[in-house]
């Protein structure tokens, strides 16, 4: 396997892990925040919201998954372009739709399907470009 193929393979594996962690994390956060209710933008309102988020189990599980996402993201951008990793991560929207259809048995409109196909096509296009186009050795600290 050539260096570029290896780089592309390990980047795509890392992106897949990112997507799984981000989707699960978002789902758990949404569940937790829905349980907490509407957040009021005022000092006591934000204090109440902060206290409620700290006490919510769903929020903590969501945070753990989002830490996993951050670690995978940090690893991926340590070797690959940001403009490669970021759009590839959009594959998560396609997975969300599949979960909505096959797990939640929701119906999906034609427009929504076109959106998902566009995302997949876009990710496929980005996935064909060189994962790293910068010379990291010249970065100033």
């Amino acid at each position: 396997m050539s260096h570029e193929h290896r780089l592309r393979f390990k980047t795509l594996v890392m992106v897949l892990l990112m997507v799984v962690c981000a989707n699960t994390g978002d789902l758990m956060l949404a569940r937790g925040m829905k349980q907490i209710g509407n957040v009021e933008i005022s000092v006591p309102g934000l204090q109440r919201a902060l206290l409620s988020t700290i006490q919510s189990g769903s929020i903590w599980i969501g945070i753990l998954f989002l830490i996993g996402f951050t670690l995978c993201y940090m690893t991926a951008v340590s070797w690959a372009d940001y403009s490669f990793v970021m759009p590839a991560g959009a594959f998560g929207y396609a997975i969300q739709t599949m979960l909505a259809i096959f797990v939640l048995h929701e119906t999906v409109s034609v427009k929504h399907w076109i959106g998902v196909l566009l995302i997949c096509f876009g990710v496929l296009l980005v996935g064909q470009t060189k994962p790293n186009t910068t010379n990291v050795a010249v970065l100033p600290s």
Partner: protein
Amino acid sequence: MSQRVLLMLIFFVLCNTGGEIVMSYGMKQVGEPQGFRPMSLLRFVWSAAKNRWLWVAIPMLAASFYSLLILFSWAKLSVVIPASASNFIVGTICAKYLLKEDVSSKRWLGVICVCAGVTLVLLTGGH
């Protein structure tokens, strides 16, 4: 979409893209992990923790995280997540001009397709 959701969404996009660009810059300086064994990963996390750019990125990403939590309580998940699609365009422009990445026409086309797809998903109101 209400005005307060839109304003919070703009704040979220600015903090999220800014934080990710700064983190990407810092992580390029840190370099990739030497392996995926626990000790190699710990060394990698330790090297990242010593990079000052990471400490600039974290507050920005924390602000974006908290604004996302607020957005979740204000609007549906199916609206908030796809609405952050503008991150892709803003992020790619920043990657090209700030990180000096070579964004080819194929990659641009891919990013535009992703952005259009995400917007369509938003317009259909979730599902």
